[in-house]
């Protein structure tokens, strides 16, 4: 949380400048800010609101409406289990249970060591390979519960981007 005080305001200025001439650019601005900070810190939103001459409540309303935006810090790796129909029918529940056991946090939470944030997603569009989960940008298909610990291990020892 202390990071909020020494926010990189210049980065926000840059993002604002890139988008200010376009109509309806609040969402891409927020997307880039989240990319920059990992989440959307309150002070950053307040700063942006001033620049946009918009009430913070309106910006907050947009942030909470879309599941992509986060107001709290998140883990280094984002795990998304698919809650889509194909995955439901092909037994994603068992994968979710295995993940919960390994991570020891419920859906929506971040592990204490800030390594993983565990989320669900409506469908990642790989239904042909159901059940499916994503870690960061990597999609894991044709999963079974037994494979979960091994997959997580790849990310525990430092980087996990080898696959």
């Amino acid at each position: 949380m202390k990071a909020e005080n020494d926010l990189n305001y210049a980065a926000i200025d840059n993002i604002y400048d890139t988008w200010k001439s376009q109509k309806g650019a609040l969402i891409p601005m927020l997307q880039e800010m989240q990319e920059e900070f990992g989440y959307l810190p309150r002070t950053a939103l307040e700063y942006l609101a001033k620049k946009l001459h918009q009430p913070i409540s309106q910006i907050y309303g947009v942030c909470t409406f879309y599941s992509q935006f986060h107001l709290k810090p998140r883990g280094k790796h984002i795990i998304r289990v698919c809650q889509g129909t194909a995955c439901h029918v092909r037994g994603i529940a068992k994968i979710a249970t295995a993940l919960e056991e390994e991570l020891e946090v419920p859906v929506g939470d971040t592990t204490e060591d800030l390594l993983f944030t565990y989320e669900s997603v409506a469908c990642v569009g790989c239904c042909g390979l159901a059940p499916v989960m994503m870690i960061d940008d990597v999609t894991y298909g044709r999963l079974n519960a037994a494979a979960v610990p091994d997959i997580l291990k790849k990310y525990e020892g430092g980087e996990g981007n080898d696959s």
Partner: protein
Amino acid sequence: MTAKPKIVVGLGTCGIAAGGREIYNAIEKALTENNIDAELTQTGCIGACENEVLVDIAKPGQPRISYGKVTEEKIGEVVTNHLLHDKIDREFALGKIGEGELSAEYDDLPYFFTDLPFYEKQVRLCLRNCGFINPEKIDEYVERDGYQALKQVITEMKPEEVVEVIKSSGLRGRGGGGFSTGMKWQFTMNAVGDKKYVVCNADEGDPGAFMDRSILEGDPHSVMEGMAIAGYAVGADEGYIYCRAEYPLAVNRLKMAIEQAKEKNFLGDNIFGTDFSFNLKVKEGAGAFVCGEETALLMSIEGKRGMPRPRPPFPANEGLFGKPTCLNNVETFANVPVVILDGPEKFASIGTEGSKGTKVFALTGSINRTGLAEVPMGITLEEVVYDVAGGIIDDGKFKAVQAGGPSGGCIPEDLLHLPIDYDSLTEAGAMMGSGGLVVMGEDTCMVDIARYFLSFTQIESCGKCTPCREGTKRMLEILERIVAGEGKPDDIEKLKTLGEAISATALCGLGQTAPNPVLTTLRYFQEEYEQHIFDKRCVAGICVDLMFYLIDAELCNGCGRCRKACPVSAISGDKKEVHVIDKETCIKCGVCVEKCKQEAISLQS
């Protein structure tokens, strides 16, 4: 044409998820190590997800051979055998595409599109290029008549004529509603405004659907060309593609495609030297299902909360930034160049009276061949489930097919003879929806499926109107108590009353259709609800609260491991004697099952 052998790796999202990038690298390595001069390239999804990773190899003058389910270890060998020794590895070879000379020994290899059961009944219009071209190279699209339709339209036709052609083709919107595309274009053309927009709905929010993703990843230009034609017809010079953020690859390929099209002047100012100009932008969604609804989508492009508003006014008159807007789905736009090039008569000759052309379906669930299939309208569900998708896995028994996602419904076995078109599916209580077909076998619980869909729409309800916000919540509570074994005798009636009330009064399509999965399962599978409520049984063995653990007396050797592990001491029995579980005490944690080396403990319904 190519003098060099060509190797094509399927790198759509599913190909990558199945390990396509590793295969690509392995091929590259094999080529270098063996000093083989070949062109290695990529393509989008060809639809046969079950067989990912797919690699096609073609030597000049020979048919192209498609290999499926290739592995990182073996692919090097497959490539060298094929290219250096003309040997085709039958373990992986699926079939051949195109003509050419091939050793007689391989005469029996099936033709990919005509002989393989998955493709036999397909007609590929929208997916004509998917799996053939490299989506990142505009020249490959142009080689296959790309942007010819646009050229024809803007250099030879008047906007009214374009609208007339689309109308007479009978093309209807592929985004769910099935509204006549020609009519929609006409309304937008006739609307008065100093500025107009074309918007492509690429939000594809239905869980279990991935048609639009595959088209965008495999053939982005076909969608863009369709949009530019629409722009000419309705008088718009600017377009937006609203793509969900969960599809990063599609977004990237679109952006790349737009740049390349601009360079070639297929987009931009004075296209083909005419005074027609058209520019495109990609907007990324931010994760909200309701943004697939057209008015919510437009709000979202404007940077606001994506909440639907009542219609009329329709977007054709008052759309993006208040201007007349022509909004269509990805697949709808991808059909447009085909309609223009082949002519509306040919397009209209495929399909049924009210539904023309083809529809792309995402086939998933408990079937043998999952994937993407484009079939002519009017084909029966039975043909799709059994002939195309190959029936239920493990020779299981069919129970229902879910069509149309959270807005659709579950169709039982005795309606499998239904032809697939907009009207007959709606009559059955389901709907065409965007094209997800999830096939379910006997091990699926229909009450659980209804609860699943409702929990989805409940979470995604934007909260603006009361029937949807409160009503879906009440329905969900009822379903949750039924699957927990606490259903009440009048719950079925309550679900029906609530469902019908919500359908009749909700503000937008999300709420109006949210009760469909519940209402259709009640219509066709009411006895399953009754079993849950009155007999406290879940025949499919899904609802854990209605199940109990049982020790098989034949298999139990009385080792006592389960008794010691049970956290609530629900298991009793003497050493070396058969053990029993007390159903009342048991909390169904399942620890005993893990501990039992005899595999004597199982869940029973």
